[in-house]
């Protein structure tokens, strides 16, 4: 079992408060994605982006959320056997949970290195598998939490604050 935490400077305290109190979101959006479903991949990210846009979230922040969410959504369909995606919208931030069906990440630190990839030919032919997914997620979020069991399921949680 492996766990990974990343907090952008200045966000650790508020993020810890969230995980301690686990408040109810104002809006909850739920989706599921199947294995290798490249046709529907992106729908969840797109709908979460649209919901946040309607709420008036700044476009530069919206772009960061969209990129991180899309990368994580692609990971669920390309590297796992699909899974669930939940967008939890709070007044000051969004937390998106990606809970896949396995088979887990062997070495999270290694998968954070730009260029490291376990993608197969099918995934690469689609233009993915450059080994930039997790680094791109980290670059765009304020909090990244990964909890993975080798051979089991992986949970990826991202938080982006609206200001």
């Amino acid at each position: 079992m492996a766990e990974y935490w990343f907090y952008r400077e200045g966000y650790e305290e508020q993020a810890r408060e969230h995980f301690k109190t686990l408040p109810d979101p104002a809006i909850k959006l739920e989706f599921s994605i199947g294995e290798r479903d490249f046709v529907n991949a992106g729908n969840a990210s797109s709908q979460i982006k649209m919901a946040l846009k309607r709420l008036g979230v700044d476009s530069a922040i919206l772009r960061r959320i969209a990129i991180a969410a899309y990368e994580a959504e692609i990971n669920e369909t390309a590297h796992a056997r699909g899974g669930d995606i939940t967008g939890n919208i709070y007044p000051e931030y969004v937390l998106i949970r990606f809970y896949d069906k396995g088979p887990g990440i062997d070495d999270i630190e290694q998968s954070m290195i730009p260029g490291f990839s376990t993608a197969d030919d099918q995934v690469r032919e689609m233009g993915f598998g450059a080994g930039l997914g997790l680094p791109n997620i980290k670059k765009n979020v304020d909090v990244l939490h990964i909890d993975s069991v080798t051979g089991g399921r992986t949970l990826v949680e991202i938080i982006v604050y609206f200001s």
Partner: protein
Amino acid sequence: MKLKEYLEIIEGKLLTKENDLDIEISGGYVSDLLSDVMGSAREGQVWITIMRHLNVIAVASLTNISAITFSKGYLPESTVIAKADQEEIILISSKLNTFEIAGILYKHLS
């Protein structure tokens, strides 16, 4: 430079519905790796690629890229064009290769 002008200099063919060709383009980004595009392409740039499946539209939409150029005369399937119309993303096809398109655009912008 306006998109209309770009379309002419790269001998491009518009694939999507008559859209706003008066949008300003500030530059271009060349890549066939979707994560690289998401990480580095900027709003206002045209994206030049040979990738032409549905995920290309998702990437452009999520990262606010308003125009995609398919080089070497590549044409996407009609479902991809329909999705682009829905997302209001402009698709262009050019017979020129990526190097030539990027070179022409670079020369005109500088």
